[in-house]
């Protein structure tokens, strides 16, 4: 199984993470629209790590399920955690003057989406896009 990852500490790491994501998406065989979806989702997750936590990581992994191939993106951090996940997933909810589009957007852009978060410990978001 292929795993690649980028630590997110500075703004430039956001650029590195999405470039890695786009390359992996191409390798798996995704078309341009899915490549854009995956790149955008990674950009949102990486920017959230940069904005709301001290440090985190974006891992990108090719996965298979039966004869389905996909790309799994795992964003993990040891930041403050998300107290109210339901609200964080609402369109327009932001604590930073953003558009509040990131998390609900990632959920729509990807096929599977899961948040595990503990206040004071950190957050792990896993999102998969399947190749059709």
């Amino acid at each position, binding site marked *: 199984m292929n795993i690649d990852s980028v630590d997110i500490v500075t703004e*430039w790491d956001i650029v590195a993470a999405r470039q890695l994501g786009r390359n992996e998406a191409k390798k798996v065989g995704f078309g*341009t*629209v899915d490549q*854009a979806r995956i790149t955008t989702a990674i950009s949102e997750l990486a*920017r959230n790590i940069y904005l709301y936590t001290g440090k985190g990581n974006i891992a990108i992994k090719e996965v298979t399920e039966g004869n389905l191939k996909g790309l799994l993106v795992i964003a993990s951090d040891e930041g403050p955690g998300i107290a109210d996940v339901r609200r964080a997933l609402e*369109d327009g909810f932001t604590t930073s003057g*953003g558009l509040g589009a990131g998390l609900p*957007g990632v959920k729509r*852009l990807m096929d599977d989406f899961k948040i595990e978060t503990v206040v004071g410990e950190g957050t792990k978001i896993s999102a998969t896009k399947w190749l059709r």
Partner: protein
Amino acid sequence: MKMRIPILKLKDCLIVSIQWELDDQTAISFQEDLLEKLHTTSARGVVIDLTPIDFIDSFIAKVLGDVINMSGLMGAKVVITGIQPAVAITLIELGIRLENVSTALDLENGLEKLERELEG
């Protein structure tokens, strides 16, 4: 590392062609540079061409939306051109509506559209 996006002037319009993937710093300085240039040239219109851009996230979308609103405040019309299909699709899925934005297929059409709007 800091890159600046060139802003050209043609008659009373400014033309911006974004040629590479925007990082946050470049996006922010583009916003400042464009407003400054609007101020110093008294241009009445702006065409922003996004042809080479293959994805837009919520941050870049916010900067673009802000640029459009701020330009409006300064009395200039903005036309966005060259939005790729993949970009249009991901923007909608992100839930982002660029409100009151004038768009055109390419730079040439964008300039024509702007000229018509400025005359009318």
